[in-house]
């Protein structure tokens, strides 16, 4: 089993997604609020995971632009759930030692008086382990 096979198996297992269900309609990317900010769009996550081309996704800033708004999940006509693939690839990165995107030391500089705790706990859950 090659490294890329192992990565693919890991992503499929942690996401619970079957990318073969995709019929390439592109609705996930069409409805994504972060489409413009993403180098790889939701439909590309689906076929790149399917073909085992995962390392470029792991290096991409796109991982941190997903808002987990579930628009792609709810509007997919084939129930592929692309956001779960984005999450699984992001976790493969931030679960590695030194992989955290957001550090608690960075937070004070980002705070203002009105920022809700909800923003902090959510960002820490999404961007660090």
């Amino acid at each position, binding site marked *: 089993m090659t490294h890329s096979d192992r990565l693919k198996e890991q992503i499929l*297992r942690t*996401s619970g997604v079957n990318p073969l269900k995709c019929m390439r309609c592109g609705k996930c990317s069409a409805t994504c*609020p972060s489409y413009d900010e993403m180098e790889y769009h939701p439909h590309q996550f689906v076929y790149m995971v399917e073909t085992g081309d995962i390392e470029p996704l792991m290096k991409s800033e796109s991982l941190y*632009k997903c*808002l987990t708004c579930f628009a792609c999940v709810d509007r997919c006509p084939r129930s592929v759930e692309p956001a779960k693939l984005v999450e699984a690839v992001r976790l493969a990165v931030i679960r590695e030692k030194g992989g955290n*995107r*957001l550090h608690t030391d960075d937070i004070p500089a980002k705070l203002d008086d009105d920022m*809700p705790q909800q923003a902090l706990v*959510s960002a820490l859950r999404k*961007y660090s382990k």
Partner: protein
Amino acid sequence: MKVRYFPGCTLKTKAKDLDRYARLCAEELGVTLEEIENWQCCGGVFTTATDEIATKLSSVRALMDARDHDAPLVTVCSACHNVIKQTNHAMQNDADFAKHVNLYLGKDGQYYGEAKAIHYLELLRDVIGFDTIRGKVKNPLAGKKIAAYYGCLLLRPSQTMQMDDPENPTVMEDLIRALGGEPVVYAQRNECCGGYAVLEDAAIAKKNSGKVMTDAASHGADMIVTACPLCRYNLEKNGTGEIPVVYLTELLAEALGVKEDAHDAQ
């Protein structure tokens, strides 16, 4: 009637009006929100990975409390509602996940999704009823054009939230009508405000929240109403500033005549 209540981290700090008026209004409508003991933060967002167990235990413990009290678990914050409902759904439908969670719980007992988690809006609509609420209105919101903002967390994933039609929701508009106001329907009402990405890249929050506010204002809304502290923050800080944003419970308190004159804004 008594229900179990999970306020969540933000309702105890930056969103005290969301909490205080939820309790006062529920009492006025004959329901006591009993805060569960020793609740822990839900984490703000549901992690969809199938092997994330520990991050969901606080939700499971809150759900166990509701089951043991034979009462529904009510949340007001959209995020708590989303995380707890998704966790409950996973406990009911994913045997492998439930097995792992129960290994963590150990002597605290076992849980298999027996409790019912509902949002405050569902309490108003399905338990109390909008007709009852209409009869209790003291200060009708007459002449006010109000844009309900659902965002993402209240409605999606819709098969799990089971709250309303995810593309054409009506629960908040129906409530606004019951309170005597005029609901404003606009395209961006169920699109994301930018959420937690405000900490990663504020431009994302600006773009999304700006779209929502401009859309609501261009449809003639006088104000936006939300149940989510992070939506409110993003709309106020990163929106266009065209119209004010208020919590759902503030609006309800005003209509029911239980809003206090002097209160802090947050």
